[in-house]
């Protein structure tokens, strides 16, 4: 068979497979997604009124003392033997200690893989409650009751250990504040 004929065949095959693997199977899948799981398909968005404030699956960074803090992000590729890792962890530990947490949970000191890990451990959440209670002038018991409502874990096949979804917890925190006082909460401090 001549090269030209082989090329023509290859060309037809390429067009055919492109159409098959890009158009023919993707379009029905997109349609099915709208039908079966419209919320998940569009990104599991969380809304406050009309405004999208985030996604249930995607973590956000929090620096204000009035919010539960997420895991650190930004240097996930520091090797176990890299002295920079030790420096970074030491700095994070002393920041937590000066904020009143003597023994911060490991997940508050070590970077998440994605940079948007939506969770922190139960211990990491509980350690932050006294600060939140102080900053928001809410009873500690009320905050403790909030944790189980935002807990995810092995039983729901969401995570290997019981964890807290930081974003939904913080949204609930804002709602708690706005329902207990008639005013909306003051704007949080910016980093």
């Amino acid at each position, binding site marked *: 068979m001549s090269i030209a*004929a*082989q*090329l023509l*065949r*290859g060309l*037809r*095959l*390429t067009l*055919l*497979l*492109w159409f098959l*693997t*890009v158009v023919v199977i*993707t379009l029905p*899948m*997109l349609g099915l*997604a709208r039908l*079966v*799981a419209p919320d*998940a*398909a*569009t*990104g*599991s968005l969380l809304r406050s009124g009309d*405004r999208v*404030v*985030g996604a249930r699956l*995607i973590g*956000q*960074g*929090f*620096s204000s003392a009035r*919010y539960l803090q997420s895991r650190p992000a930004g240097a*996930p*590729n*520091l*090797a*176990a*033997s*890299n002295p920079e*890792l030790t420096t970074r962890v030491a700095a994070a*530990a002393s920041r937590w200690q000066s904020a009143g947490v003597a023994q911060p949970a490991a*997940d508050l000191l070590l*970077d*998440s*893989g*994605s*940079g948007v*890990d*939506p*969770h922190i451990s139960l211990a990491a959440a509980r350690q932050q409650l006294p600060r939140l209670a102080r900053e928001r002038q809410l009873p500690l018991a009320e905050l403790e009751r909030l944790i189980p409502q935002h807990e995810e874990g092995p039983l729901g*096949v*969401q*995570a*290997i250990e019981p*964890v807290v979804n930081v*974003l939904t917890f913080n949204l609930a925190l*804002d709602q708690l504040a706005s329902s207990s006082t008639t005013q909306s909460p003051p*704007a*949080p401090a910016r980093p």
Partner: protein
Amino acid sequence: MLPWLLAAITLAAVALTAPSLGRHLFEVFDGRPQPAWDRWLNPIEDGLLRWIGDNGRSADSAMAYLMPLLISNTLFGALALTLLLLQPPWLNPLGLGGLRWDLALHTTISFLTNTDQQHLVPEQSLGNLAQLGAMQFLMFVSAATGLAVGFAVIRGFSGRPIGSFHRDLLRALTRVLIPASLLLALFLLVCGVPMTLAPPLQITTLEGGQQLLPRGPIALFEAIKQLGENGGGFMSANSAHPYENPTLLTNLVSTWAMLIIPAATIDAFGRFVGNRRQSNLLLALVFALLLIGAVVAMKAEQAGNPMLDRWLSGGNLQGKELRFGPVLSGLWAVVTTGTMTGAVNGSIDAAMPLTILTALFNLFLQVVVGGQGTGIAYLLVFVLLAVFLTGLMVGRTPEFLGRKVEKPQVVWASLILLIHPLFVLIPAALTLAGGASLAGISNPGSHGISQVVYEYASAAANNGSGLEGLADSTRWWNLTTSASLLGGRFLPIAALLALAEGFRRKPALEPSPGTLRTDTGLFTAVTAVVLVILGALTFFPVLALGPIAEALTLAS
């Protein structure tokens, strides 16, 4: 305890489901009747083959199988490269234009070779047209090419004609990869993976910051990424990103998905040669290697980093997601490197040295269950060498599957095994000789050597994972890894086809009392020794300079 139990269940699920898929693969690639599938697909497949001008008859030589493979793969690559270079900014909401030429070339070659090494941040470089039309397209056709080669090689070893590449490619898609990907995509979607053409969403966070939610047609992309041993992420964070791998359950199913097709391919091999004892022993061999690696990595991650003992306790969570934890991230690292997938659910760069050691070892061997189609082919090469060695030792003419193993087979097998170290060690040595700034090393000491060697090993093994701190988006890295990607893919494919077709043409022998049986535990153990010695000896010096030295530093 729970992570270990779940890891065991996941691996057991692979072992339990592999035979059913193995049977299906056998029927598909041996042209057996499949009434439920044939009724719908036969007219379509026949029509499509006729449209491209192929009669679907078997090729009469290895070259006649290889030529359409090379031509079509070149054209697949050309189409994808064009899309990446000419990405029109007005077509995607982020206004992303074409990629720099070396980055576009590397990305194309990387996906075309079933590797999916990524030197770019996809969510900040590619719109949906490029993600679907270039990346998803190449993920499907490269996996199908791998399967086609794997079964052409199996046919040769089982004494059958080599087959038709176009027919194999088409059936790999219509009867294996597409239906499996659609099912997995549906499952992932229900678990929370997005599937939409709606643009990425720029939002204001609770604290007033800006965040981009990188939504897209991810569920289907993710399915073929895992099932096809591709591993290229829709997002840079890959399977660590909650939109690709949102829960513990999706993580376990994604781990299963990486293993199932290569495991089933080995099972199908047993059905082709009519000796399932042979394939079960080979499966046991690769699963034993996988298990040893998994235990080493999982224990290392569970024990955590001794350098940080002053501040924290527990497993190594650096670069990992809390939903998966240290142990299941360790399992993933071993599975993703053993199967040549290359997807990551956390940073391997930040993993413990013993995890990196296991990952590198898997990349060097290329058979710890192995890549899409290519895994079984490399495994058969190792078996041939083991047959030859044991034949020499006991003074019998070496035979495998009723055919003599002679000089041409041993020469081909040795060549195939030499290609890999050539495309790993030489460029790694050149890069290291060029100094730290050329290499782009981000972690000091012996870990830096691991970063460089890993990048080329991953490229040449067509894996795609990396020690991602490495600053690899440079012209040097893009071009040199492109050479390793191409060399590690198409040279072995050509040699494997030639080896298998040559083997088929040898006269078939009746087994005699003097025949050395290859379907015994003893022979399998010898094969394991051959594998480990050949793999370990070639690469031991770099393992000692990299992860072993790092492990010793941490321990001291």
